[in-house]
Protein backbone atom coordinates (compact mmCIF):
# COMPACT_ATOMS: atom_id res chain seq x y z
CA UNK A 1 0.00 0.00 0.00
CA UNK A 2 1.22 3.50 -0.70
CA UNK A 3 1.21 6.30 1.88
CA UNK A 4 -2.13 7.64 0.75
CA UNK A 5 -3.87 4.29 1.12
CA UNK A 6 -2.19 3.71 4.45
CA UNK A 7 -3.30 7.14 5.71
CA UNK A 8 -6.87 6.50 4.62
CA UNK A 9 -6.72 3.13 6.40
CA UNK A 10 -5.64 4.77 9.65
CA UNK A 11 -1.95 3.81 9.69
CA UNK A 12 -0.20 5.94 12.33
CA UNK A 13 3.22 5.67 10.69
CA UNK A 14 1.82 6.88 7.37
CA UNK A 15 0.33 9.93 9.09
CA UNK A 16 3.65 10.59 10.83
CA UNK A 17 5.63 10.34 7.59
CA UNK A 18 3.21 12.56 5.67
CA UNK A 19 3.50 15.19 8.41
CA UNK A 20 7.26 15.07 7.92
CA UNK A 21 6.78 15.55 4.18
CA UNK A 22 4.45 18.47 4.81
CA UNK A 23 7.03 20.11 7.08
CA UNK A 24 9.82 19.52 4.57
CA UNK A 25 7.83 20.86 1.58
CA UNK A 26 7.90 17.45 -0.03
CA UNK A 27 5.25 17.45 -2.79
CA UNK A 28 3.98 14.01 -1.76
CA UNK A 29 2.11 15.48 1.23
CA UNK A 30 0.34 17.98 -0.99
CA UNK A 31 -0.49 15.25 -3.50
CA UNK A 32 -2.17 13.11 -0.83
CA UNK A 33 -4.16 16.06 0.54
CA UNK A 34 -5.26 16.95 -3.01
CA UNK A 35 -6.51 13.43 -3.62
CA UNK A 36 -8.32 13.14 -0.30
CA UNK A 37 -9.49 16.73 -0.03
CA UNK A 38 -13.12 15.63 0.11
CA UNK A 39 -12.44 13.97 3.44
CA UNK A 40 -11.33 17.19 5.13
CA UNK A 41 -13.53 19.53 7.14
CA UNK A 42 -15.11 17.17 9.62
CA UNK A 43 -12.68 17.61 12.50
CA UNK A 44 -13.26 20.45 14.94
CA UNK A 45 -10.14 22.57 15.41
CA UNK A 46 -9.37 24.11 18.80
CA UNK A 47 -6.54 26.60 19.22
CA UNK A 48 -4.80 26.90 22.58
CA UNK A 49 -2.78 30.07 22.89
CA UNK A 50 -1.34 32.33 25.58
CA UNK A 51 1.92 33.68 26.98
CA UNK A 52 4.90 31.37 27.67
CA UNK A 53 4.45 29.37 30.84
CA UNK A 54 0.72 30.00 31.11
CA UNK A 55 0.07 26.26 31.11
CA UNK A 56 -1.05 25.67 27.52
CA UNK A 57 0.40 22.13 27.33
CA UNK A 58 -0.95 21.08 30.72
CA UNK A 59 -4.37 22.49 29.85
CA UNK A 60 -4.32 20.70 26.49
CA UNK A 61 -3.39 17.46 28.24
CA UNK A 62 -6.33 17.70 30.63
CA UNK A 63 -8.87 18.79 27.99
CA UNK A 64 -7.82 15.93 25.74
CA UNK A 65 -8.17 13.41 28.58
CA UNK A 66 -11.69 14.71 29.23
CA UNK A 67 -12.57 14.32 25.54
CA UNK A 68 -11.02 10.85 25.43
CA UNK A 69 -13.17 9.81 28.39
CA UNK A 70 -16.15 10.77 26.23
CA UNK A 71 -14.90 8.56 23.41
CA UNK A 72 -13.58 11.22 21.01
CA UNK A 73 -10.32 10.83 19.11
CA UNK A 74 -7.83 13.67 19.16
CA UNK A 75 -4.86 15.00 17.22
CA UNK A 76 -2.51 17.51 18.82
CA UNK A 77 -0.15 19.85 16.99
CA UNK A 78 2.24 21.45 19.47
CA UNK A 79 4.34 24.28 18.10
CA UNK A 80 7.52 25.57 19.73
CA UNK A 81 9.94 28.18 18.41
CA UNK A 82 12.80 27.40 16.03
CA UNK A 83 16.08 29.22 16.62
CA UNK A 84 16.52 31.94 14.01
CA UNK A 85 20.28 31.45 14.37
CA UNK A 86 20.83 27.71 14.03
CA UNK A 87 17.51 26.39 12.73
CA UNK A 88 17.41 24.04 15.72
CA UNK A 89 14.62 23.75 18.26
CA UNK A 90 13.72 22.19 21.58
CA UNK A 91 10.20 20.84 21.26
CA UNK A 92 9.12 20.26 24.84
CA UNK A 93 5.35 20.41 24.93
CA UNK A 94 5.10 16.65 25.27
CA UNK A 95 6.58 16.78 28.78
CA UNK A 96 3.14 17.78 30.08
CA UNK A 97 1.29 15.15 28.08
CA UNK A 98 3.11 11.94 29.00
CA UNK A 99 0.05 9.89 29.81
CA UNK A 100 -1.34 10.51 26.32
CA UNK A 101 1.67 8.97 24.53
CA UNK A 102 0.37 5.43 24.58
CA UNK A 103 -3.30 6.25 24.09
CA UNK A 104 -4.13 4.89 20.62
CA UNK A 105 -6.87 7.52 20.22
CA UNK A 106 -4.39 10.38 20.50
CA UNK A 107 -1.73 11.47 18.02
CA UNK A 108 0.72 14.18 19.06
CA UNK A 109 3.06 16.00 16.72
CA UNK A 110 5.59 18.59 17.84
CA UNK A 111 6.61 21.20 15.31
CA UNK A 112 9.21 23.94 15.19
CA UNK A 113 8.14 27.26 13.71
CA UNK A 114 11.00 26.98 11.15
CA UNK A 115 11.18 30.68 10.49
CA UNK A 116 7.44 31.26 10.28
CA UNK A 117 6.14 34.14 12.37
CA UNK A 118 2.67 34.41 13.83
CA UNK A 119 2.80 31.67 16.45
CA UNK A 120 2.41 28.65 14.17
CA UNK A 121 4.57 26.79 11.64
CA UNK A 122 3.98 27.00 7.93
CA UNK A 123 2.98 23.35 7.81
CA UNK A 124 0.33 23.69 10.54
CA UNK A 125 -2.59 23.91 8.14
CA UNK A 126 -1.41 20.92 6.13
CA UNK A 127 -0.95 19.02 9.39
CA UNK A 128 -4.52 19.83 10.41
CA UNK A 129 -5.77 18.48 7.07
CA UNK A 130 -3.76 15.27 7.35
CA UNK A 131 -5.05 14.59 10.87
CA UNK A 132 -8.55 15.44 9.68
CA UNK A 133 -8.29 12.96 6.80
CA UNK A 134 -6.87 10.42 9.24
CA UNK A 135 -10.20 10.72 11.07
CA UNK A 136 -9.54 12.64 14.28
CA UNK A 137 -12.69 14.15 15.82
CA UNK A 138 -10.86 17.04 17.46
CA UNK A 139 -7.58 18.69 16.55
CA UNK A 140 -5.80 20.84 19.11
CA UNK A 141 -3.24 23.36 17.99
CA UNK A 142 -1.01 24.63 20.75
CA UNK A 143 0.77 27.79 19.62
CA UNK A 144 4.18 28.97 20.73
CA UNK A 145 4.07 31.17 23.80
CA UNK A 146 2.68 34.38 22.39
CA UNK A 147 3.49 38.01 23.03
CA UNK A 148 1.43 40.61 21.33
CA UNK A 149 1.04 39.92 17.67
CA UNK A 150 1.14 36.15 17.15
CA UNK A 151 -2.47 35.84 16.16
CA UNK A 152 -2.26 33.34 13.28
CA UNK A 153 -4.17 30.80 15.34
CA UNK A 154 -7.37 32.74 14.73
CA UNK A 155 -6.95 32.05 11.00
CA UNK A 156 -6.67 28.32 11.57
CA UNK A 157 -8.85 27.30 14.52
CA UNK A 158 -12.62 27.13 14.90
CA UNK A 159 -12.45 28.02 18.60
CA UNK A 160 -9.54 29.87 20.19
CA UNK A 161 -8.95 29.37 23.90
CA UNK A 162 -6.81 32.13 25.33
CA UNK A 163 -4.93 30.89 28.38
CA UNK A 164 -4.10 33.64 30.86
CA UNK A 165 -2.50 33.58 34.30
CA UNK A 166 -2.92 35.83 37.31
CA UNK A 167 -0.13 38.21 38.21
CA UNK A 168 0.63 39.64 34.83
CA UNK A 169 -0.86 42.75 36.39
CA UNK A 170 -0.51 45.80 34.28
CA UNK A 171 1.11 43.76 31.55
CA UNK A 172 -2.40 42.80 30.62
CA UNK A 173 -2.77 46.30 29.32
CA UNK A 174 0.07 45.70 26.94
CA UNK A 175 -1.30 42.52 25.42
CA UNK A 176 -4.94 43.41 25.13
CA UNK A 177 -4.67 45.05 21.74
CA UNK A 178 -3.55 41.97 19.78
CA UNK A 179 -4.40 39.02 21.90
CA UNK A 180 -7.58 40.14 23.62
CA UNK A 181 -9.25 40.26 20.24
CA UNK A 182 -8.71 36.65 19.26
CA UNK A 183 -9.95 34.72 22.29
CA UNK A 184 -13.33 33.04 21.88
CA UNK A 185 -12.94 31.78 25.41
CA UNK A 186 -10.64 33.00 28.18
CA UNK A 187 -9.26 30.46 30.64
CA UNK A 188 -7.46 31.91 33.64
CA UNK A 189 -5.12 29.10 34.58
CA UNK A 190 -3.31 28.76 37.93
CA UNK A 191 -6.44 30.33 39.41
CA UNK A 192 -5.35 29.15 42.85
CA UNK A 193 -2.73 31.90 42.81
CA UNK A 194 -3.37 35.34 44.22
CA UNK A 195 -4.91 37.79 41.82
CA UNK A 196 -7.04 35.38 39.79
CA UNK A 197 -10.25 37.22 40.60
CA UNK A 198 -8.68 40.53 39.69
CA UNK A 199 -7.46 39.12 36.38
CA UNK A 200 -10.95 37.82 35.68
CA UNK A 201 -12.49 41.22 36.44
CA UNK A 202 -9.93 42.98 34.22
CA UNK A 203 -10.68 40.69 31.32
CA UNK A 204 -14.44 41.00 31.83
CA UNK A 205 -14.12 44.78 31.90
CA UNK A 206 -12.25 44.78 28.63
CA UNK A 207 -14.82 42.47 27.10
CA UNK A 208 -17.52 44.90 28.27
CA UNK A 209 -16.06 47.39 25.82
CA UNK A 210 -16.53 45.02 22.88
CA UNK A 211 -19.13 46.20 20.47
CA UNK A 212 -22.33 44.28 20.87
CA UNK A 213 -21.30 40.96 19.45
CA UNK A 214 -23.47 37.90 19.26
CA UNK A 215 -20.82 35.92 21.13
CA UNK A 216 -19.51 37.24 24.40
CA UNK A 217 -16.32 35.30 25.25
CA UNK A 218 -16.78 33.55 28.59
CA UNK A 219 -14.02 33.90 31.18
CA UNK A 220 -13.42 30.91 33.42
CA UNK A 221 -10.96 30.09 36.17
CA UNK A 222 -9.13 26.76 35.96
CA UNK A 223 -6.26 24.95 37.65
CA UNK A 224 -5.01 22.65 34.92
CA UNK A 225 -2.47 20.67 36.99
CA UNK A 226 -5.28 19.73 39.37
CA UNK A 227 -7.66 18.98 36.53
CA UNK A 228 -10.02 21.55 37.96
CA UNK A 229 -12.48 23.44 35.78
CA UNK A 230 -11.99 21.28 32.69
CA UNK A 231 -15.65 20.28 32.37
CA UNK A 232 -16.68 23.94 32.53
CA UNK A 233 -14.07 24.95 29.96
CA UNK A 234 -15.07 22.12 27.66
CA UNK A 235 -18.69 23.19 28.10
CA UNK A 236 -17.76 26.67 26.88
CA UNK A 237 -15.99 25.16 23.87
CA UNK A 238 -19.08 23.10 23.01
CA UNK A 239 -21.31 26.17 23.43
CA UNK A 240 -19.06 28.18 21.13
CA UNK A 241 -19.15 25.40 18.58
CA UNK A 242 -22.94 25.33 18.74
CA UNK A 243 -23.10 29.12 18.44
CA UNK A 244 -20.84 29.02 15.37
CA UNK A 245 -22.84 26.41 13.55
CA UNK A 246 -26.30 27.76 14.43
CA UNK A 247 -25.43 31.35 13.53
CA UNK A 248 -23.74 30.40 10.27
CA UNK A 249 -20.49 31.87 11.63
CA UNK A 250 -18.66 28.55 11.24
CA UNK A 251 -19.03 28.62 7.48
CA UNK A 252 -18.13 32.29 7.39
CA UNK A 253 -15.10 31.78 9.59
CA UNK A 254 -13.84 28.81 7.61
CA UNK A 255 -14.45 30.64 4.34
CA UNK A 256 -12.46 33.61 5.58
CA UNK A 257 -9.67 31.29 6.72
CA UNK A 258 -9.52 29.50 3.38
CA UNK A 259 -9.40 32.83 1.60
CA UNK A 260 -6.48 33.96 3.81
CA UNK A 261 -4.64 30.70 3.36
CA UNK A 262 -5.09 30.72 -0.39
CA UNK A 263 -3.59 34.20 -0.62
CA UNK A 264 -0.69 33.18 1.65
CA UNK A 265 -0.09 30.13 -0.51
CA UNK A 266 -0.04 32.17 -3.71
CA UNK A 267 2.26 34.73 -2.10
CA UNK A 268 4.65 31.94 -1.11
CA UNK A 269 4.63 30.50 -4.62
CA UNK A 270 5.28 33.87 -6.21
CA UNK A 271 8.22 34.37 -3.85
CA UNK A 272 9.46 30.87 -4.66
CA UNK A 273 9.25 31.69 -8.36
CA UNK A 274 11.20 34.90 -7.93
CA UNK A 275 13.85 33.22 -5.80
CA UNK A 276 14.17 30.35 -8.26
CA UNK A 277 14.35 32.61 -11.29
CA UNK A 278 16.56 35.27 -9.71
CA UNK A 279 19.86 35.34 -11.52
CA UNK A 280 18.43 33.43 -14.47
CA UNK A 281 15.41 34.96 -16.14
CA UNK A 282 15.07 37.55 -13.41
CA UNK A 283 18.15 39.65 -12.69
CA UNK A 284 17.01 40.63 -9.17
CA UNK A 285 20.51 41.51 -7.98
CA UNK A 286 21.11 43.69 -11.04
CA UNK A 287 17.80 45.44 -10.46
CA UNK A 288 18.77 46.14 -6.86
CA UNK A 289 22.12 47.56 -7.94
CA UNK A 290 20.45 49.77 -10.50
CA UNK A 291 17.99 51.06 -7.90
CA UNK A 292 20.81 51.86 -5.49
CA UNK A 293 22.70 53.66 -8.29
CA UNK A 294 19.54 55.67 -9.05
CA UNK A 295 19.66 54.20 -12.52
CA UNK A 296 16.15 52.87 -11.98
CA UNK A 297 13.41 53.52 -9.43
CA UNK A 298 12.13 50.82 -7.09
CA UNK A 299 8.56 50.87 -8.43
CA UNK A 300 9.63 50.31 -12.01
CA UNK A 301 11.77 47.41 -10.80
CA UNK A 302 8.74 45.87 -9.09
CA UNK A 303 6.74 46.31 -12.31
CA UNK A 304 9.55 44.61 -14.23
CA UNK A 305 9.39 41.61 -11.86
CA UNK A 306 5.60 41.44 -12.12
CA UNK A 307 5.82 41.41 -15.91
CA UNK A 308 8.25 38.50 -15.72
CA UNK A 309 5.78 36.60 -13.52
CA UNK A 310 2.91 37.31 -15.90
CA UNK A 311 4.77 35.87 -18.85
Amino acid at each position, binding site marked *: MNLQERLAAGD*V*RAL*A*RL*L*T*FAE*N*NDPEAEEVIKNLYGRTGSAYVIGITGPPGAGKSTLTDKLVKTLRARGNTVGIIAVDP*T*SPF*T*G*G*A*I*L*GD*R*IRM*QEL*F*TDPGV*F*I*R*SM*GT*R*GHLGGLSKATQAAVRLMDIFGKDYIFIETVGVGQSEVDIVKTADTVVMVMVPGLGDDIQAIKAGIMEIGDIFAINKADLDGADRTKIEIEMMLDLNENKAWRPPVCKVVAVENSGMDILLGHIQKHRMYLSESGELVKRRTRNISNELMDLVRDRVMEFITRESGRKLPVDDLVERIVAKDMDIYSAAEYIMEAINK
Partner: protein
Amino acid sequence: MDKPIRVLVAKPGLDGHDRGAKVIARAFRDAGMEVIYTGLRQTPEQIVETAIQEDVEVVAMSILSGAHNHLFPIVVNMLRERGADDVLVVGGGVIPDDDIPGLKEAGVAEIFTPGTPTTKAIEFIKQNVKRR
Protein backbone atom coordinates in the same frame (compact mmCIF):
# COMPACT_ATOMS: atom_id res chain seq x y z
CA MET B 1 16.61 25.61 7.56
CA ASP B 2 14.39 23.33 5.54
CA LYS B 3 15.13 19.79 6.70
CA PRO B 4 16.44 19.66 10.23
CA ILE B 5 17.34 16.26 11.66
CA ARG B 6 14.63 15.27 14.15
CA VAL B 7 15.89 13.68 17.35
CA LEU B 8 14.02 12.27 20.32
CA VAL B 9 16.01 12.71 23.52
CA ALA B 10 14.54 10.22 25.96
CA LYS B 11 15.08 9.28 29.57
CA PRO B 12 14.01 5.66 30.03
CA GLY B 13 13.60 4.10 33.43
CA LEU B 14 13.47 5.46 36.91
CA ASP B 15 16.43 7.73 37.47
CA GLY B 16 15.44 11.26 38.32
CA HIS B 17 18.32 13.21 36.92
CA ASP B 18 18.20 14.80 33.48
CA ARG B 19 20.94 17.40 33.54
CA GLY B 20 22.93 15.39 30.98
CA ALA B 21 19.90 14.92 28.74
CA LYS B 22 19.24 18.65 28.83
CA VAL B 23 22.86 19.47 27.99
CA ILE B 24 22.80 17.13 25.00
CA ALA B 25 19.36 18.39 23.91
CA ARG B 26 20.68 21.94 23.94
CA ALA B 27 23.81 20.90 22.02
CA PHE B 28 21.69 19.18 19.36
CA ARG B 29 19.52 22.28 19.11
CA ASP B 30 22.59 24.45 18.61
CA ALA B 31 23.70 22.03 15.89
CA GLY B 32 20.49 22.84 14.02
CA MET B 33 18.45 19.78 14.97
CA GLU B 34 14.83 19.63 16.11
CA VAL B 35 14.93 17.99 19.51
CA ILE B 36 11.85 16.45 21.04
CA TYR B 37 12.29 16.17 24.77
CA THR B 38 9.69 14.27 26.74
CA GLY B 39 10.91 14.46 30.33
CA LEU B 40 11.86 11.89 32.93
CA ARG B 41 10.82 8.30 33.64
CA GLN B 42 9.69 7.14 30.23
CA THR B 43 8.62 3.59 29.56
CA PRO B 44 9.87 1.89 26.37
CA GLU B 45 6.27 2.06 25.08
CA GLN B 46 6.16 5.82 25.56
CA ILE B 47 9.51 6.26 23.85
CA VAL B 48 8.57 4.11 20.86
CA GLU B 49 5.13 5.69 20.38
CA THR B 50 6.68 9.15 20.55
CA ALA B 51 9.41 8.19 18.07
CA ILE B 52 6.78 6.96 15.64
CA GLN B 53 4.32 9.85 15.94
CA GLU B 54 7.11 12.41 15.72
CA ASP B 55 8.74 10.48 12.86
CA VAL B 56 12.18 11.09 14.34
CA GLU B 57 15.30 9.92 12.58
CA VAL B 58 17.23 9.47 15.82
CA VAL B 59 16.37 8.21 19.29
CA ALA B 60 18.99 9.30 21.82
CA MET B 61 18.50 7.70 25.23
CA SER B 62 20.19 8.84 28.41
CA ILE B 63 20.33 6.58 31.42
CA LEU B 64 22.09 6.74 34.77
CA SER B 65 20.35 4.06 36.75
CA GLY B 66 22.17 1.01 35.43
CA ALA B 67 19.15 -0.47 33.68
CA HIS B 68 20.59 0.13 30.18
CA ASN B 69 21.14 -3.56 29.40
CA HIS B 70 17.46 -4.14 30.05
CA LEU B 71 15.85 -1.02 28.58
CA PHE B 72 17.91 -0.13 25.49
CA PRO B 73 17.37 -3.47 23.70
CA ILE B 74 13.63 -3.37 24.47
CA VAL B 75 13.33 0.01 22.74
CA VAL B 76 15.34 -1.19 19.72
CA ASN B 77 13.20 -4.30 19.38
CA MET B 78 9.92 -2.45 19.76
CA LEU B 79 10.97 0.02 17.07
CA ARG B 80 11.75 -2.90 14.77
CA GLU B 81 8.42 -4.55 15.49
CA ARG B 82 6.66 -1.33 14.53
CA GLY B 83 8.58 -1.21 11.26
CA ALA B 84 10.66 1.76 12.37
CA ASP B 85 13.97 -0.02 11.93
CA ASP B 86 15.41 2.93 9.99
CA VAL B 87 15.65 4.96 13.21
CA LEU B 88 19.20 5.49 14.49
CA VAL B 89 19.34 4.57 18.18
CA VAL B 90 22.16 5.90 20.35
CA GLY B 91 22.68 5.86 24.10
CA GLY B 92 24.52 7.79 26.74
CA GLY B 93 25.03 8.03 30.46
CA VAL B 94 26.76 5.99 33.11
CA ILE B 95 27.44 2.81 31.15
CA PRO B 96 30.39 0.49 31.92
CA ASP B 97 32.74 -0.21 28.99
CA ASP B 98 32.10 -3.93 29.37
CA ASP B 99 28.43 -3.47 28.54
CA ILE B 100 29.00 -1.54 25.32
CA PRO B 101 29.67 -4.46 22.91
CA GLY B 102 26.47 -6.20 24.03
CA LEU B 103 24.41 -3.06 23.55
CA LYS B 104 25.84 -2.54 20.07
CA GLU B 105 25.04 -6.13 19.22
CA ALA B 106 21.47 -5.47 20.38
CA GLY B 107 21.19 -2.67 17.83
CA VAL B 108 22.30 0.47 19.65
CA ALA B 109 24.50 2.23 17.09
CA GLU B 110 26.80 4.01 19.55
CA ILE B 111 27.23 4.64 23.27
CA PHE B 112 28.53 7.93 24.62
CA THR B 113 29.90 7.79 28.15
CA PRO B 114 30.57 10.68 30.55
CA GLY B 115 33.21 13.10 29.31
CA THR B 116 32.38 12.64 25.63
CA PRO B 117 32.35 16.05 23.93
CA THR B 118 28.87 16.84 22.59
CA THR B 119 30.45 17.51 19.20
CA LYS B 120 31.36 13.83 18.94
CA ALA B 121 27.75 12.75 19.38
CA ILE B 122 26.61 15.38 16.88
CA GLU B 123 29.18 14.24 14.30
CA PHE B 124 28.18 10.61 14.78
CA ILE B 125 24.52 11.41 14.22
CA LYS B 126 25.18 13.54 11.16
CA GLN B 127 27.26 10.78 9.60
CA ASN B 128 24.97 7.87 10.41
CA VAL B 129 21.43 9.22 10.23
CA LYS B 130 19.17 7.97 7.44
CA ARG B 131 17.50 11.09 6.06
CA ARG B 132 13.80 11.00 5.20
